[in-house]
């Protein structure tokens, strides 16, 4: 499952989109479609995880930033 670590979020998203498209075309053999679907589910999970990870990171950084902000420019805080 960790085989395509080097793919970016966007690449994975693209792949997922391709999968969705190919599934919607209905031209795939059903089994292939299921395989794709499985792949899609995996991709989705990965993307989901990526997003979670990134969000967590951003949120942490945001907190961190806020703290710094509060410390140094407490009065500026009202405008925000």
């Amino acid at each position: 499952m960790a085989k395509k670590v080097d793919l970016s979020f966007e690449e994975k998203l693209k792949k997922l989109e391709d999968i969705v498209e190919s599934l919607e075309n209905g031209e795939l053999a059903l089994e292939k479609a299921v395989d794709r679907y499985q792949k899609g589910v995996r991709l989705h999970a990965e993307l989901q995880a990526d997003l979670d990870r990134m969000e967590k990171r951003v949120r942490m950084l945001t907190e961190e930033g806020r703290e710094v902000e509060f410390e140094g420019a407490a009065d500026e805080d009202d405008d925000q």
Partner: protein
Amino acid sequence: MDSPPPRRRALFGYEPPPSASDGGPLSVTELAQRARRFLEGEFASVAVKGEITDVSRSQRGHIYFTLKDANSQIPAVLWEGAARSLDFQLQNGLEVVARGNLTLYAPRGRFQFICQKITPAGEGLLEAKFRALTAEYEAKGWFDESLKKPLPFLPRVIGIVTSPTGAAIHDILETLLRRHPRASVLLAPAKVQGVGASEDIARAIRLLDGRDDVEVLIVGRGGGSLEDLWAFNEPAVVEAIRRARTPVISAVGHEVDVTLADRVADVRALTPTRAGEVVVPELEALIDGVRILRDRLDREVTGLLRNASLTLDALGRSWALREPRRMVQRASERVKELRAALTRSLEGTHRRLEERLRRLDRIPSGRLLLARLVRARQEVAGLRREMDGAMRRNLEGARADLERLGPLLESLSPLAVLQRGYSITRTKDDGRILRSSNEAAPGDEIVTLLADGEIVSRVEES
């Protein structure tokens, strides 16, 4: 000089000289000899009156001179012998009567008067003596201007040598006291005429000259004849004047009378009145002069001080000295301005940067990124939904196909009749449908298809 009209006839005559022989021309010498003979014969002894000029004395003692009057002149000579017996000095300008003869000095072609005897013309003994004394003192240089002493400007005591009863003392005092009412005068009375006068005058001069207070002397008398004035030509007086330490003003006779005293004195006053004028300045003018000088002095020094004071005051009033704080103030203001500018400028910089930074405060909020994440999440979720749907639709399609085909197949089943009690029998080994009993042999296994299943049987018989 008012000499009488020249008597040419007396000197030269108008008789023409004897004419030369009617023969050929004479030699110059012949002519000169004839002229000399003529002159010596004609003027063997004559007296001539004239003025002496061009006096010169040869080394041998001969005296050469020229006799002249207004229009003519004749060279003359006084041989050494005659010259030695002369009791007066031959000097230029002297009017004389010369006795002698005329001759021609051939080598020069000049005629010449040979003097035998010469006497001063028209004067007595006094005149001759006067001239002799004049000559003597002139020779001594007693009349030289360089010897003249200056008069004191304001003599303390004025010594006067004259007769206390004469006109002179009156004239002098009158003038003197008019000019200088505070003058101090000391009169030394003296006989100014007659026997012993010169000694008396000299004594009086010496007397006054010996006093410390007398600073100037006036020596004189009123006018008179040469004899009257003679005492002032006497050596005693001349020498007393000459030797006096005190400046002497002579005031003898009138303007025309010149005595030796006049000539030897430091100043000659033409008249006693004049002597009163020259001896003192006018007192009033003097006082005025001194006062004016003092006034000028005061005015000048006051002016100088006032100018200096004004200059100094002006300098003191100059703002540079009066308001020195201004120079510091200007600098102070500048410093204050700079201080304000300094703070302002840095605050400006700081504010600008702060604003720039504040614009970037979106960063810490992370909203942007979170939004993007949300969008991505939505996208991902959407894709998932789509994928799920598509997958479902795929499966549903397949199922629909299957479900359509199932009943169709069922309906087309050749085995439908079996429901009605028919059955189909097939061989077990090859599934062949038995259409005839002889198609099966005993022992063969057969499969009978019934509506609800199969029955496998073995053929007993056919």
